[in-house]
């Protein structure tokens, strides 16, 4: 069961890393033009980069959980994964955010994908924590 949790974390970490890179406004060629004429990236671009920064350690955590056998190690990995899962949700919704127009890809794809992925990551990590606590022996 723990191996299944680890696989879920690995797969969703890849989703968190890859999807935002293709669904933020910079990828669509859109930027913000300031009064001075200078262009800056829209905030969804920063969200995409932040998700990349979260997805990479999450991938590592999932891989470690797959090969780990010690209860204490798996406990720590589960807790860290749950925390990262929550951050995956918070980045595009409150910490940084995305563009507000409903039809832009950052709003219609990036944000919901991160929310759904984050919820499943957190749920899987918590499930892994519970399963780990109940296991009396670690399977070889």
């Amino acid at each position, binding site marked *: 069961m723990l191996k299944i949790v680890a696989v879920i974390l690995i797969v969703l970490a890849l989703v968190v890393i890859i999807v935002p890179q293709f669904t933020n406004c910079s990828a669509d060629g859109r930027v913000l*033009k300031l009064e001075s004429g200078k262009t800056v990236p829209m905030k969804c671009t920063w969200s995409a980069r932040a998700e990349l920064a979260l997805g990479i350690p999450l991938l590592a955590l999932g891989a470690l959980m797959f090969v780990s056998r010690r209860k204490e190690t798996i406990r720590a990995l589960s807790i860290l994964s749950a925390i990262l899962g929550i951050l995956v949700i918070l980045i595009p919704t409150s910490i940084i955010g995305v563009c*507000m*127009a409903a*039809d832009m890809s950052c709003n*219609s*794809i990036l944000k*919901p994908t991160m929310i*759904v992925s984050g*919820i*499943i990551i957190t749920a899987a990590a918590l499930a892994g924590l519970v399963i780990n606590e109940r296991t009396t022996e670690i399977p070889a």
Partner: protein
Amino acid sequence: MNLTRLSLREISGNRFRSWVVVICAFLVAGFALATFLIAQGAGNSLRLSQERLGADILVVPEGTERKIEGALLMGSAAQVRMPAVNLELIGQVPGVEIATPQLYLMSMTDSDCCSVPDMFMVAYDSATDFTVEPWLEKELGRQLRVGQSVGGTYVFVPPGDEDIKLYGYHLSLEGNLEPTGSNLDATIFFTFETAYAMGETSLIEAGQPLIVTPGLISSVLVKVADNADIAQVATAIKQAVPGVSPITSPNLFDSFRDEIAGQRLAMTGILAVVLVLSFALIVLVFSMMMNDRRREIGVLRALGATRGDVLRSLLSGATVLGAAGGVAGVFVSGLVLYFFHARLTTALGFPFKFPSIPGLVFLVVLGLAVALAGVVLAAFVPVYRISRQEPANSMRE
């Protein structure tokens, strides 16, 4: 130790087969919820959109019915115009209580002139309007002035700005209407006077001017008198006013209704296929499980378990697996439908509105019930058969 707990222990002992049952229940529950939500949500959205317009008859230029419905529901561009004189002619038709004009405009994509791209704009006559005015009366206690607007639930002032800029013209947002699930939620409403002012400003401020010709309108919304027959009034309008097409309220958005019906049939078909395949797979899995446990069940019967005990115990195992898969299925399906709502609307080609909490709970329970019923019924056949066997026959090699 009772038989139900024994059955639950057996579930964890037979991992692969248990997962097959769980996954089948997951798929059935997920598809069932998606089908119910979209079907019901689409109907709700159309109904709410109709109620938002509030008209008994929508009069549009002949041949533009689909275009106008598309603009109202899906936000597709609709440069539709007819002479404003039609308004007077319609007003003179017997049975017409109120006739109010509307003008449909679109904001521009990728332009400095518009702070919100691709917005659907509706200009209305504040003296005769019955779409927005009732809300304004209730919420603000006054009509909109020039330069003021009211928007659907998704209309907003861009962060950092004080107002919405459309074609270089600054509009204040006085409030947001309740959601309908359709493009009316991304529509901005203002008076004709504001539209004319916007048109004039656009000549100087915008790269491409907004043409608002005083003698032209897009549609006329009609409220029929209480004692008049809507269909008869619509026929009279058709005869009195050349080149128009009156759409009566029940037939409004008919083209979308057909599309929704088609989509609903397709989704129900997929659900039926998933259900049948899952059913067959679960029958197979439980037949294999019962074959493996044949001897064990014979021993239980010999030790004193009744046929009913065996049946209840084995079906409780099936129920647990079905419930686990079903709950996961409705959870994931609900999440995806809720957060990807906008994308799904574009993909499906019609809007659907997420129900209120009680409605959602009902549909979730329904989806779960379909999955559970499927699993338990599928498991029943092989389980019943083995519970009826004589103990000695079960224990034979």
